[in-house]
């Protein structure tokens, strides 16, 4: 049944064998690294630009306005124009700031998000590295970003930045737990941490449908906690422009600010991609039990389209509540995590373990 879905492994495999015939073993590895690097950088930049455009359009719809509609068709080139403006802006250096750390911080943030995107399965057979501990790896590298934020806040020599960075530290460290536990719920169901394995395990139904109510609870917890982890509203306390002007990136300008900005959007995509992979079946088409004809029709939609549809569905939800909800206060934020989400996800995972032991899931 799965054979109708195009496997990108055919394409990548043929490129691989061609390179082998040209360069030999060592040369192939180097050439593939360069190729994958260029592909990812291009994808990263285009995705960042598109997500910024998308956010502006989505928030415009929510706020009764048009959004960008002057530069290019439907304002599509607006973000490009903004990027050029940011590139040309002066890089202001702050007196008595720690120059080295100040310049380092944006790179740490952007590298963290870059590393996390490497393990994402975009389509059948299209994944840069398929680690056997994929979920664990994504969790680990995506939480590196907080180091960059803390450094940025500390080295800016600004009180607003420092408060923003401290808030961000408290927030990310707390919500990391809930994200981990909610992902662990599905890892328990799937019995593997490998992202491709988790996708394969959803061939006959996505975990959010197969996993009874606990999977839905885990999905909701994941949405809340991951939004908090990427510092987006209503959890954008680290930036909180009405309280801290711009939080940890108050003192950054030009392209260094753009790095933070870009990393924020890419992080949003990563969160959505992981959520889509783990809960909504990744690139797996929508299948219903033994409805073979229906399943066959669904298989005709390319796997990449399925993946991006699901990822952008989650992105839309995240954007939706950013533009609707007010911001939480720091103590309420920590209360929500430690008193509600954490115990709930712990209980949830025990229930799931029980379900898996008894073999009650589909």
């Amino acid at each position, binding site marked *: 049944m799965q054979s109708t879905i195009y496997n990108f492994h055919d394409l990548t495999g043929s490129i691989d064998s061609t390179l082998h015939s040209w360069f030999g073993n060592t040369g192939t590895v180097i050439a593939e690294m360069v190729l994958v690097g260029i592909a990812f950088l291009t994808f990263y930049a285009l995705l960042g630009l598109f997500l910024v455009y998308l956010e502006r359009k989505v928030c415009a719809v929510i*706020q009764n*306005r048009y959004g960008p509609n002057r530069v290019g068709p439907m304002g599509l080139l607006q973000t490009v124009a903004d990027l050029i403006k940011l590139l040309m802006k002066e890089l202001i250096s702050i007196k008595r700031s720690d120059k080295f750390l100040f310049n380092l911080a944006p790179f740490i943030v952007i590298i963290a998000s870059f590393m996390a995107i490497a393990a994402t399965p975009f389509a059948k057979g299209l994944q840069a590295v398929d680690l056997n501990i994929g979920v664990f790896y994504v969790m680990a590298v995506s939480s590196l970003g907080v180091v960059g934020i803390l450094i940025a806040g500390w080295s800016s020599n600004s009180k607003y930045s420092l408060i923003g960075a401290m808030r961000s530290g408290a927030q990310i460290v707390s919500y990391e737990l809930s994200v981990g536990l909610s992902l662990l719920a599905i890892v328990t169901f799937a019995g593997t941490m490998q992202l491709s394995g988790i996708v394969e395990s959803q061939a006959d139904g996505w975990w959010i449908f197969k996993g009874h109510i606990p999977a839905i609870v885990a999905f909701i917890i994941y949405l809340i906690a991951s939004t908090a982890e990427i510092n987006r509203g209503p959890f954008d306390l680290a930036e909180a*422009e*009405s309280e801290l002007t711009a939080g940890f990136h108050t003192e950054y300008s030009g392209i260094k600010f753009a790095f933070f900005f870009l990393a924020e959007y890419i992080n949003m995509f990563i969160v959505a991609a992981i959520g889509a992979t783990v809960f909504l079946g990744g690139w797996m088409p929508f299948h219903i039990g033994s409805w073979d004809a229906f399943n066959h029709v669904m298989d005709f939609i390319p796997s990449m389209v399925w993946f991006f549809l699901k990822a952008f569905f989650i992105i839309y939800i995240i954007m939706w509540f950013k533009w609707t*909800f007010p911001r939480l206060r720091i103590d*309420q934020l920590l209360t929500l995590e430690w008193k509600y989400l954490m115990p709930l996800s712990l209980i949830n995972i025990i229930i799931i373990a029980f379900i898996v032991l008894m073999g009650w899931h589909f």
Partner: protein
Amino acid sequence: MSEEIIKDVIIGESDDYIINMGPQHPSTHGVLRLEVCLQGETVKYLIPHVGYIHRGIEKMCEASSYPQIIHLTDRMDYLSAHMNNEAVCLCVENAMQVEVPERVKYIRTILDELNRIASHQLWWCAFGMDLGALTTFFYGLRDRELILDIFEESFGSRLLHSFNTPGGLMHDIHPNFQKRVKDFITYFRKKLPEYDQLLTGNVIFQQRAKGVGLMSKEKAIAYGVTGPSGRGSGFSCDLRKHAPYSAYDKVQFNEILYNEGDTFARYKVRMDEMWESMNIIEQLIDNIPDDGFTAKMKPIIKLPAGEYFQRVETARGEFAVYIVSDGNKTPYRIKFRSPNFSNLFVMNELASGGKIADLIAISGSLDLVIPDIDR
């Protein structure tokens, strides 16, 4: 600047973590500077510093004739421009013992209430923004625009409309005025529940607002906090009820009082006041008498020597004018009692001990307009 000067002058000798909110800060709504002392996220105390937009309006008034003063009062609380104008006009009219036509009284009252709705709408926009709900801004401004269009059609200006003049109005209202106001009321009665759906019922909003910035009735009276902020603490201070002017004695309306004294109570007062304002306008809009838009006034207005006082209820509280005249065409001395000045200085009491985010919520709920504080 050497390190020593920085240590002594800017940081100070104490170990307090002092942060300057403003004069340029997104949520001080103008050039207000709050010197906030923090302990982690908690506010220990705060000192408001005013004067960044001081223009010496009271001194300027001493060199201006009474019709000119009207235009200066616009520039104080620019969101209640009409009420400020009215205060000076009423004061001058009382001093000269001029009886203005009924039509003028009715129109002034309607415009007061329209202006109050517009002001509360903008407050609602900004309050949502302060709490991080960015969409409120566009919903509020969408509806406020309609009021401003009505203003523009009748007086040619949208914000600072100096439409009042001692003895009446500058000119008559536009023929479309009544119809457009009625259309707006029908429209806004449908749209106002949207505000509640978007913000009031939100769990996060209620958590942010309830129990935050508690102000007792005694404290409100002690600091002279008037207007919706005072009424949120149960301080019955609505001058439209207690000292009616213009046509307020001819309409039925309730004074909105909440006893909780927290940010949410202040929020609810303003939301309910928008409904009350619409009721007031509806009672008046069809019954505007037709006896001229101005009383007969002398070309040069000279107040008899003496002291004159008039207060009105603006969108933010009690605005009072005190004129000392020596019989000339300019006042000897003029003093404005602006509501925001009193409302600002209660902030230390309310925000101390809370979080930074509470401070923002409190300053938003007091609805400060900075040019009104500094004058």
